[in-house]
């Protein structure tokens, strides 16, 4: 597929999702262009994480469509596994594979899914680990890593699939404060290299610094969106104001 055949990298239309009686997403529409960096902020329970997890169908929406690179991935006939290869995801709790070495964590998926030979994948793992300062840990098991190191590993594990977009689900929320910086730096460098990025975060300073656009989600909808200057500088929605008032002191 040529890149010109779709307007947006991800185009979400009227997404709905309920967990039992809880209507978590109440009609979310948004599009993300190639190379864009979009931060999603808002109070917990507002639907941020669910929205992000819908983008690669870790949560299956009840209604609405998600068109990724021109393909509606909510269509049941679509092989979601193929599309997930192009969408890297990083989780709050790292979810590195404890039974594999650091290097194996990275090489497993590209080799298993036939994207790379073992030798190629190992070469790439070296390069990626070097980039995030973990090269000397490549033969260790994740239990020997700190939280920040685990999260850096999780990021390069996702990058090893050479994704077209990276999804971050509160990547620093489970970290000790002194480790937040090292992980944010890795994400910043990614952004600098032009990676399309969607990030759910509570790090307002970071969101303000790296984002092209910021979405404020509350009550299952995107209550307000705009450039960081607009949203942080002069929020229009009273709920945005209230939220920012609480977190920015």
């Amino acid at each position, binding site marked *: 597929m040529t890149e010109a055949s779709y307007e947006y990298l991800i185009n979400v239309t009227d997404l709905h999702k309920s967990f039992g009686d809880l209507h978590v997403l109440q009609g979310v529409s948004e599009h993300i262009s190639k190379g864009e960096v979009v931060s999603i902020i808002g109070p917990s329970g507002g639907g941020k994480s669910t929205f992000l997890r819908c983008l*690669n169908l*870790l949560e299956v929406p009840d209604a609405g469509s998600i068109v990724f690179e021109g393909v509606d991935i909510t269509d049941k006939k679509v092989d979601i*596994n*193929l599309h*997930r*290869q192009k*969408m*890297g*995801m990083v*989780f709050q*709790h790292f*979810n*590195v*594979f*404890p*039974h594999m070495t650091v290097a194996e964590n990275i090489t*497993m*998926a590209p080799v*298993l*899914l036939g994207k790379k030979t073992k030798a190629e994948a190992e070469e790439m793992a070296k390069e990626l680990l070097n980039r995030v300062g973990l090269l000397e840990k490549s033969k260790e*098991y994740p*239990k020997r890593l700190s939280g920040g190191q685990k999260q850096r590993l*999780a990021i390069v*594990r*996702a990058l090893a*699939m050479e994704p077209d977009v990276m999804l971050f689900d509160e990547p620093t929320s489970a970290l000790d404060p002194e480790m937040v910086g090292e992980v944010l730096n890795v994400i910043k460098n990614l952004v600098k290299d032009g990676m399309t990025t969607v990030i759910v975060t509570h790090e307002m300073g970071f969101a303000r610094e790296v984002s092209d656009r910021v979405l404020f989600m509350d009550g299952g909808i995107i209550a307000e969106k705009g450039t960081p200057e607009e949203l942080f500088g002069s929020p229009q929605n009273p709920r945005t104001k209230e939220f920012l008032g609480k977190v920015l002191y």
Partner: protein
Amino acid sequence: MFSNIVRILERYWNLFLIGTGYTLLMSAITVLFGLIFGALLALLRKNRLGIPIGKKKFYPIRFLAVAYIEIIRGTPILLQLYFFYFLLPMLFPILNLSKFTSIMVALIFNSSAYVSEVIRAGIEGVDHGQMEAARSLGLSSRQTMMKIILPQAIKNILPAMGNEFIMMIKETSLSSTFFVGDLMTQYKTVSGALYLSIEPLMIVGFIYFVLTFSLSKGVAVLERRMSAGD
């Protein structure tokens, strides 16, 4: 009493040895096949074949697997031994099954139900985030199971299988009801020949204890090794 024990051992040591061999062999076979069929049962429990009934769905294969597990766990093992002991020769008269075979089948049926629960718990014990991470990389659910979930579940399952083996060493004693050669059968033989109960019971009890105690120590070591890998 002590001199009696020594005399019994001198005269019947080979019977106790054979009994120990049978008990260990029966337990090992039971656990081995229990593992195979238990894994199969655990798989059937996750079967997705569903028949829609109104708004809900009925899963016939899941239902059968769960019913089997619950019935086995809800009835005494001695009853199950009797049941298969009488049922199998009736169902397959041509095969001319020995009573040992019938008892083994009963033990395996019993163990499979318990092992399937062990496997299920082992798989469910793996953090849900592992599955999500693997799926987000593009792995299929099958690849995720084989490469990510099972290798970690083994760490939970293997020690529990050791405990199942220890349980079986004790439970096979019930098969002595049918004189199939296990340790407890040897007790009956010796006790019948000598009109003595306490002394042969002490001998057999001592052997059971040594077997289970040393094995449970082994399982504890295994458990420690396994958790060291995390």
